[in-house]
């Protein structure tokens, strides 16, 4: 199954503790600092708990006389004052880290940030680059070292945008526009995911962030724009027309039957499908399998199964591959 092959294209696990960008590195540093404090506090408390038990092991089963206890010392100093000091330290670290994760200010000589709109759908990510007039899905291309301002919108329910190695989460909420920012410091491919439960395929609502050197990014942008110029003609050219027409018809029927909201199953969708599988692997069989019966790969998906004969299927796959 293709998802097992996803690993091959990512640079390591999507771990918040393996940051590849300054922003995530600050969060990880805060995390490590707190883990150290937590460990020390835990050991100290366990010592206070276990020392008396250890000291009195094997003591006779009778009661010692009542001991005088400094109640204020234990409860007020030990229980309130010492924790308050530790918490104050953590709070200061929190504020410092919070300030440092603000988007970089508009320095006069800084390059204009790359604008990216990310739109959450059940269960995929639409990605738009207004400055380049590109629409894509499920992958975000970044030029290394340039700040990308991410505008987050939802087309349906609440999602949450999370690329752990680059930054923390930001929710994607219908009726709101949230923003976050990413800056990749090195070349690489990292996994992002939806972090807010959004329905049946929440588990598979992943995306890739691909950071390339500036030149490679520009080249990618040119190619993508060229591919995007004449989508309608191209879909009419071959099997793709059948596919999209079939999908529109089915969508219509499904809407009437179930009254469900539907995606705009158009060009964007074809690109989404294409990109999803190009990321995973280039195995034609996967793409064909996805088109033939999406529900087998992503149970619950709202993409209808498209009844195509073998010849049409090959044509569609060829068309999708031609979009590369």
């Amino acid at each position: 199954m293709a998802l097992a092959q996803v690993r091959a294209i990512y640079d390591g696990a999507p771990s918040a503790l393996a940051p590849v960008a300054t922003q995530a590195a600050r969060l990880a540093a805060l995390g490590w600092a707190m883990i150290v404090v937590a460990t020390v506090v835990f050991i100290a408390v366990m010592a206070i708990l276990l020392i008396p038990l250890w000291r009195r092991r094997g003591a006779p089963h009778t009661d010692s006389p009542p001991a005088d206890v400094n109640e204020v010392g234990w409860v007020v100093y030990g229980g309130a004052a010492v924790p308050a000091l530790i918490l104050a330290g953590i709070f200061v670290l929190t504020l410092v880290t919070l300030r440092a994760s603000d988007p970089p200010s508009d320095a006069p000589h800084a390059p204009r940030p790359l604008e990216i709109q990310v739109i959450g759908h059940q269960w995929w990510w639409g990605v738009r680059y207004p400055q380049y007039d590109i629409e894509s899905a499920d992958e975000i291309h970044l030029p290394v070292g340039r700040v990308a301002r991410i505008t987050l919108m939802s087309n349906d329910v609440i999602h949450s945008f999370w690329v752990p190695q680059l930054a923390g989460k930001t929710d994607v909420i219908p009726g709101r526009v949230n923003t976050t920012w990413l800056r990749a410091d090195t070349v690489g491919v990292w996994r992002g995911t939806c972090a807010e439960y959004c329905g049946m395929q929440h588990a598979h609502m992943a995306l890739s962030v691909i950071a390339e050197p500036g030149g490679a990014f520009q080249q990618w942008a040119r190619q993508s724009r060229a591919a995007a110029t004449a989508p309608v003609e191209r879909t009419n050219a071959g099997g793709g027309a059948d596919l999209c027409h079939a999908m529109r018809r089915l969508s219509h029927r499904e809407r009437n039957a179930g009254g469900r909201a539907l995606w705009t199953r158009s060009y964007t969708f074809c690109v989404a499908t294409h990109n999803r599988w190009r990321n995973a692997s280039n195995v034609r069989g996967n793409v064909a399998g996805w088109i033939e019966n999406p529900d087998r790969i992503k149970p619950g998906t709202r993409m209808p199964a498209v009844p195509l004969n073998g010849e049409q299927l090959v044509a569609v796959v060829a068309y999708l591959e031609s979009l590369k």
Partner: protein
Amino acid sequence: MATGVVERVDLAALTDRLQEEWHTPRTLYGWFATVDHKEIGKRYLVTAFLFLLFGGLEAAAMRTQLARPESRLFSPEAYDQLFSMHGTTMMFWYASPVLSGFSNYLVPLLIGSRDMAFPRMNAFAYWAFLLSGLFVYASFLGGAAPHGGWFAYVPYTSVQYSPGLNMDFYALALLFLTISTTGGAVNFIVTIFKLRCPGMSVSRMPLMLWSTLTASVSMIFALPALTAALIFLELDRRFGTHFYEPTLGGSALLWQHLFWVFGHPWVYIVILPATGMASMMIPTFCRRPIVGHTYVALATVSTGIIGFGVWAHHMFATGMPELSATFFSAASMAVSIPSGMQVLAWLGTIWSARRHVFATPMLFMLGFIVLFVIGGISGVMTASVPFDLQATDSYFVVAHLHYVLVGINLFPALAAFYFWMPKMTGRMLSERLGKWNFWVLFTGVNLAFFPMHVAGLRGMPRRVYTYPAHMGWDGLNMVETIGAYVTVVGVLLFIINVVLSLRSGRRATSNPWGASSLEWSVSSPPPEYNFAVLPTVSGRDPLWEEYDSLSRPAAEHARNPAPTRIPASSELPDWRVLADGRETLDSTILDADPQGVLRLPSETLWPLGLALALTALFSALLFRSPVWTIAGTVATLAAVVGWLWPTQEFWT
């Protein structure tokens, strides 16, 4: 009130008379009509424990699915229903009711009263709790169990994205349950304020009363937010209003605010009474009063209050202004300070113990402290906004909340079963099996939940029905699943222990642990009227007064606790006897000075009738049947009228 003096109490005659007045007939009618707080408390405990098993089975099923990547055991729809019902069951039908069960059973005994202030409302609260739970579980019959998580965020739960009955089951069952919970909370507040025995002034209240009181007051203030949220949701779903519809002027975040304004105090509601029980058990096994009694009471109350100011820490990632985020971050850190005071009070008690008694409840208490500290520390970490942006909605939070809820609810509850079940059933649980129970459970829980911290930080999101392989999560998930199975074995050991105890457990004395509070002064199990002669107290640890002054060994003390020796031949004021009908004493709020005599009702079917009428009403609402909705409303009103119908005394 009368201030006469009863000369020469004939104890045998008195108990006979009280037994006659308070006896609930052992018939089918008596079973359904009982208003005895002990019977109701036991039913709460059994029912809540059954819901714990349901929720536990759901968890075991989920862990089986997640043991390996790409598992296809459950469909996403089935998995979503499992995790939603797991959370909903555990938070609403286990964690709070199990504590209500202990409080129901124990509060009247702790305060030296013969029942709760409103016994019929108590019975009603139980029936409504049971029936609302059956109502939500009936959803499985139609394959339409709630699937939006226990948090049920809109718009996923709106009719557009969730058109089935799933979320209607959720919303209506919870509305039904809040009626029960509110009634129960009012009952505890009035009982604790007004029914304490003479001498039990506020400063002498056992700590379990403080925690039950705090939780009950918090319920009264927290539940309306949930009720409003659920009513808005149903109006949106059923009548096309748009409270939560952003395109028409509503707000998806409104639900989150309402839900968490309720939801975070709810977390304290399901842990505070358990900390109160801990403050009863730990001193018993250390043979000394708790260190810093007053501070612990203050800490309990302040946790309840600060708990209302931290809700937005569930929403740091929603894009809230930084200033708000830092405020809620600071408040969330501050709320851990009173918890720190409580922990240090227990540590100080253990440190300065006269002796350590390692009975099973004490082992569970030690485990509870360990889990509490881990859950508290990870809570402070998630209170830090930038860290939370990585941790929230990942398995790190799953780890945190399970350390908190298992550690501060389940472990104290199991300790309390070991501690108080002998009082309830008259039989001890096996210590040998109890120790196995503890170690197996403690191992299982840590194996199941500790690796989740790591999985979450390695980027594993919550609420996923499966996950890809080779993400660095495979091994952790396998360990977690093994831990979950070990936990199941631990719970099974507990059930075996209970069954064996009921069949052939050693008989319990009235005070098998040598504890200090009033419930241990009566027989195990207590008589139906609780106290033949209503007690008075002159300190915080009434049963230890003699022990403290004489420094007697606890064992001897346990065999012969002071207050059970009723001064049969001495002169007693008649308010200590009260045997003309079902009566108990009512007293002033602060000083507990006797104020009047409270007449309590006897068996009645009206509470059950009202709960059944509400079940009919909520079912009619579920199936959108106007006729049955009207019928259910009429039945509900009729049950209320029947319940409140004046007694014969009123007419004559």
